[in-house]
């Protein structure tokens, strides 16, 4: 083996690669992949829910004695979150048209709805009559809704950041990738809630 005397002469002009931004922007790819991992995380939590539900048979699957699920409140929370997805999307459409003012408005409304959801969730927790340590129903209920709530909180933080950046005038019709990324994260959080709600409250 000769010592390293291979000469490498790439010909042509010095040209270094500009990362070709064809197709989906890099940040969006990253966000979608991150969301994929979060889907799997919730998948794991849902697996614990369904396994617990199957395991307690032939006992009925229900909250512990003294506890009761508040279906009405959950339905209201669902409506709040679904509306917030709509308002988020209105904001995205606005900034795609270049309308930063409407972006600020819709983002603000989305953030308010998100905070309202979290407040409602905490209120629900205080009224339920059972805790995480009250048998397997309590454990899976609080774990599933609790981690969903944590993800809503994370989304709210993201919304706050893009609201602040929007107020500094950083977004335009051409440059607003952070808004797109936060918006799909917010839609993801909404979809997970629909799954949580359907599983815990509708399917039971």
């Amino acid at each position, binding site marked *: 083996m000769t010592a*390293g005397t291979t000469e*490498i002469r*790439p010909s042509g002009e010095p040209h*270094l690669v500009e990362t070709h931004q064809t197709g989906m922007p890099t940040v969006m790819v990253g966000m979608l992949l991150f969301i994929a*991992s979060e889907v799997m995380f919730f998948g794991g*939590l849902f697996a614990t829910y369904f396994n617990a539900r199957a395991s307690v048979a032939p006992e009925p699957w229900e909250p512990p004695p003294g506890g009761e699920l508040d279906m009405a409140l959950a339905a209201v929370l669902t409506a709040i979150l679904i509306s917030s997805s709509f308002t988020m999307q209105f904001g995205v459409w606005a900034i795609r048209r270049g309308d930063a003012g409407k972006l600020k408005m819709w983002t603000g409304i989305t953030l308010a709805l998100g905070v309202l959801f979290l407040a409602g969730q905490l209120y629900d927790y205080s009224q339920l009559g059972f*805790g*995480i340590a009250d048998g*397997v129903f309590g454990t899976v209920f609080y*774990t599933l809704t609790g981690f969903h709530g944590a993800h809503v909180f994370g989304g709210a933080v993201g919304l706050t950041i893009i609201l602040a950046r929007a107020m500094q005038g950083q977004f335009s019709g051409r440059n607003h990738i952070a808004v797109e990324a936060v918006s799909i994260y917010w839609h993801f959080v909404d979809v997970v809630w629909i799954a949580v709600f359907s599983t815990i409250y509708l399917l039971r």
Partner: protein
Amino acid sequence: MATTTLEPQAGAPAYRRSWVLDWLTTVDHKKIGILYIVNGFLFFFAAGILALVVRSELAVPGLQLVDQDTFNQAFTMHGTIMLFLFIIPTLSGFANYIVPLQLGAPDMAFPRINALSFWLLPLGGILIFSGYLFGGAAAEGWTGYAPLTSDRFSPGTGTDLWIIGLALVGTASILGAVNFITTIFKMRAPGMTLFRMPIFVWTVLVTAVLILLATPVLTAGLIALFIDRNYGGSFFDPSVGGNPILWQHIFWFFGHPEVYIVILPAMGVVSEVLPVFSRKPLFGYKAFVFATIGIGLLSFSVWAHHMFTTGAVFLPFFSFMTALIAIPTGIKMFNWLGTLYRGKLMLTTPMLFALGFISMFLIGGISGVMLASPPIDFHVQDTYFVVAHLHYVFFGGSVFGVFAAAYYWFPKMTGRRLNEPLGKVHFWIHFIGFNLAFFPMHQLGLSGMPRRVADYSPDAGWTYLNLASTVGAFMIAVSVIPFLINVVASLINGEPAGDDPWEGNTLEWATTSPPPPYNFDRLPPVHSERPLFFLTHGHGHVAERPDDLEEHSEDDVERRGGAA
């Protein structure tokens, strides 16, 4: 001889940074790769010492050295550290260093998140190890089965530290996976279609997808366990409606893709090394890619083969799927054999480790197919047969891959060559020691020796095999010494490597050793999966000329004119 020179731009100040700060704040994928590798080897040594503790105790019957609790901590920490803090991070480190270079990219897609992924590792590892400071490390096996890991049976802090440390390490992996996938899809050099990527990049891609999808499930399980232990949860406690088997399902749904996460990058390394030292392209590139993807997909369908004996598993399905996954693995074996066939073999140290990989992984794969069959598995589950299998695939596979990568890419990373004779000494002691340590375990398992036991009866007839195994373990430990001497001596005074000491095929050899911070001054044109081969050897081999090379670019004209 480097022809790509680094000319400091006029006006750029010469500066002297503190090297500590340099390494602490770096976001350069090359430095981060080295950090991963160094960190990985440190944990390798620590977990290796734990293995020596285990083997020393088991050499002869009787509890001579440690008590049972210490023994349990030793094998638990050995497994956890080796898998989560050595193998995956070290292979990740090589991937971090090499993948952007092989793609012709200046760095990873998200360089700062790349650094974050690294720094979570030593911190997670310290948390896991710190169990020793607080009454004892985790001692329930790296698989952490409930209810043994519940607060009722393992009340110590060590298990909690293990959980949280692993959560940090898992998060690091997931972030790394996002980074790799994005980089591979978005930052390839012009002309590098997916099917012109180096094979190593393909294996890293599939590995990253597995990490992305499997690790979060482990995170969910770890959180559930933590809630059970500390917040009165009932996930795994049957007395309040929970189910211990749930832990096994969650853990192994992650755990099985995990073992492919461990092996695929090593297979990628072997697939880089073999063509270079056989002077032939990889046989059946596309088949290999599809086999890798097939393994990735199938890996999610076999998890319950770790749970055959629970009675809670639909045996025919999982047995069938497990046997099925042997097929793409077998295809790869033939890819490698086909590459070697009629090649001009150069038995350098990386090549020896790659050949060692093929033969040792074959043995591990065969014992794996045996375990796929429930009738066999029912007899050898939780015996040393399984320990033999897992070490042949993890150690005979992945660790051999790590050393192949180390010897192959050390010149690129440091600009120095490792000493070949010393490397061969390392290889042979390592190879013989490895087989001495682990081959007897097949027989031990078949004759009934259970795993995770600190002691055994002198009448069982297991003594001599255990003794042999312990000798082998110490041989492995000794083999590390020539490696370390080689690394340190070569760093200080090794022969300069130049850009391309091995006459490689892929883009990392088209820049200096080590590369400049932004990797390439100029990129060679990419028209095949061996861009450097065509660059240095011209298009003389018409048969290998890619079909879609229609236009004659300036590059082509000049190269043909100046072809050697």
